[in-house]
């Protein structure tokens, strides 16, 4: 189990430096654009970790969805709103907040680390090849390095997604539709007088929108 090769350690530490450096960059950079670029570094590092654990599909999705779509969305909003200016981080309205946050973060890390150390042996000793209770055949993660099938990760993930979790998968489409519709409604500028002849819903939205305005 501890027969990691040298190159695996190199990959692990390089990707970890990417992850942690990007994360510290996100919270330390004054300019939100630089924070977004630090977030990209972190997401790429996490994708490298996914590849190292043979979660190839998730690594691809991580790069496409997170580093591609979500960060671009962040950058769009930053540029669109014109908040891409450096902010003075030394201004702190509540003086005790930073020490308290530091104590909280260190305490949280310490607690989780204690849990990891306590359960480390248990995690390592769990049978690596679980047995299917019905067919008595070993089940588990089919990986490219074990089976020689380069699509093994995608195939097993797709089989799991479209059989066991198909209902949740369909529900995510509802979630995405609701999110998109809600965002369009939320960010739309409603001109005065528009929508009053379009029916009850549009005029209600208009009146509530203009009513909540200052």
């Amino acid at each position, binding site marked *: 189990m501890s027969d990691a090769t040298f190159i695996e350690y190199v990959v692990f530490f390089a990707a970890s430096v990417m*992850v942690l450096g990007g*994360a510290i960059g996100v919270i330390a950079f004054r300019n939100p654009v630089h924070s977004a670029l630090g977030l990209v570094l972190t*997401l790429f590092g996490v994708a490298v970790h996914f590849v190292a654990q043979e979660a190839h599909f998730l690594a691809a999705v991580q790069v496409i969805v997170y580093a591609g779509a979500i960060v671009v969305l*962040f950058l769009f909003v930053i540029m669109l709103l014109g908040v891409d200016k450096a902010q003075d981080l030394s201004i702190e309205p509540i003086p005790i907040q930073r020490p308290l946050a530091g104590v909280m973060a260190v305490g949280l*890390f310490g607690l989780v680390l204690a849990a990891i150390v306590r359960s480390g042996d248990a995690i390592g000793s769990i049978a690596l090849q*679980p047995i299917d209770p019905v067919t008595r055949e070993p089940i588990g993660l089919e990986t490219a390095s074990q089976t020689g099938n380069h699509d093994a990760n995608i195939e097993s993930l797709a089989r799991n997604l479209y059989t066991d979790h198909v209902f949740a998968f369909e529900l995510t489409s509802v979630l995405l539709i609701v*999110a998109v519709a809600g965002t369009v409604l939320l960010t739309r500028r409603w001109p005065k007088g528009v929508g009053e002849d379009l029916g009850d819903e549009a005029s209600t939205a208009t009146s509530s929108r203009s009513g909540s305005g200052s």
Partner: protein
Amino acid sequence: MIAAIEPTWYLTLAALLFSIGAFGLLVRRNPLVMFMCIELMLNAANLTFVALATQLGDINGQTAVFFVLVVAAAEVVVGLGIIVSILRRRPGATADDLVELKG
């Protein structure tokens, strides 16, 4: 065994990433940067999921990460919509300016 790196290392890294994200969420005042810190914390959870899925040989962990990705995308869209509509009214607003939650 796939990953020869011990899973506890991945879990430790994820804990560190989550702590950094939580610290940033509490410290930063810019709502956009606070959102990025939430993304950091979500990624820490994803890393934990994948590490344990690999260790336990269970593909369900990777499926959970897939759903986390979808929910994170939806969450970012809605959150950025709210931030856009807030900052459009009050340019340069920080999280402290939103205590009264009036437009």
